[in-house]
């Protein structure tokens, strides 16, 4: 019952969209189209991300993560999380579940945020898109400027959260 309650707002939204189609209400129809587009994008890749998260959870031992991308992992660890992020796809909200599993397995705060930064700006599938529409020079330059910046963000977040209670929760 509690689970169903969470869907009330969504059901209202969908009913309104349905009514818009019934009565040819243009604004509602457009919003419906947008929703379909976002829904398609989400439903195509998010289940894949969650399968990867689940497999990661059962197969990768905590010691390995702690050793390679944990608190004392240094530059190699940073390289590893960046590599991991560039191979994935989808909008940023798809990276949060993966950040959770990395955290659960002992990844450092710094590397969590570097992972999020790399995921949002350096994904290879997205880069090919970017080069196609904005040119190699723009993409290369943007990548080169962004890379050090989100590594700095990683260090900054670690510094901010160092002495505070920090956790990545399971939703």
């Amino acid at each position, binding site marked *: 019952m509690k689970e169903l309650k969470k869907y009330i707002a969504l059901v209202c939204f969908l009913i309104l969209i349905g009514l818009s189609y019934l009565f040819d209400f243009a604004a509602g129809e457009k919003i419906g189209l947008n929703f379909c587009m976002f829904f398609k994008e989400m439903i195509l890749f998010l289940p894949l991300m969650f399968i990867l998260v689940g497999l990661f959870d059962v197969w990768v031992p905590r010691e390995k993560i702690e050793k390679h991308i944990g608190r004392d992992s240094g530059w190699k660890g940073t390289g590893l999380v960046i590599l991991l992020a560039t191979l994935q796809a989808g909008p940023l909200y798809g990276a949060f579940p993966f950040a959770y599993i990395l955290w659960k397995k002992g990844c450092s705060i710094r590397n969590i945020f570097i992972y999020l930064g790399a995921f949002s700006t350096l994904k290879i599938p997205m880069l090919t898109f970017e080069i196609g529409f904005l040119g190699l020079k723009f993409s290369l330059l943007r990548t080169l400027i962004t890379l050090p910046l989100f590594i700095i963000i990683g260090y900054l977040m670690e510094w901010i959260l160092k002495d505070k209670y920090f956790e990545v*929760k399971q939703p």
Partner: protein
Amino acid sequence: MKLLIILTLICLCISFFTSREKTMIGIKKGFTMFIRLLPTLLLMLAIVSIVLFLIPRETMAKYMGEGSGIKGWIMAAIFGSVALIPGFIAYPLCGILIQSGVAYSVIAVFITTLMMTGFLTLPVEVKFFGWKVSVIRNLVSLAAALLIGLVMGLLL
């Protein structure tokens, strides 16, 4: 996208042939997390669709192009932070913007905020990181995006 599918399939195959049992546990764990997150996720997408309707692409293009100085920058940062536009729409849009004379630095700010910050996706982020950390991360990313735009503007 294709890369992710291939990656997932390879992982699934290896996992399945090594241990069927563990694979099933893994998939189940992932699926449970997905189902739990789904209501928040769908609600967020509903809100995003409404916002994208209220600020159509043409409006974004108009405001970012106008007097592409400081104002174009600020608009790019605002649109980029609020909107959640999939890459396959955002990049063609940026291509058009460049052709219609919008500065590269403005485009860089727009793209970076689009990817790194998401004020509309906060409800989802908060489920994982809590309010404080999510807000800090978004603000820091916003600052970084502006800096990236600045450097791009100086170099291009």
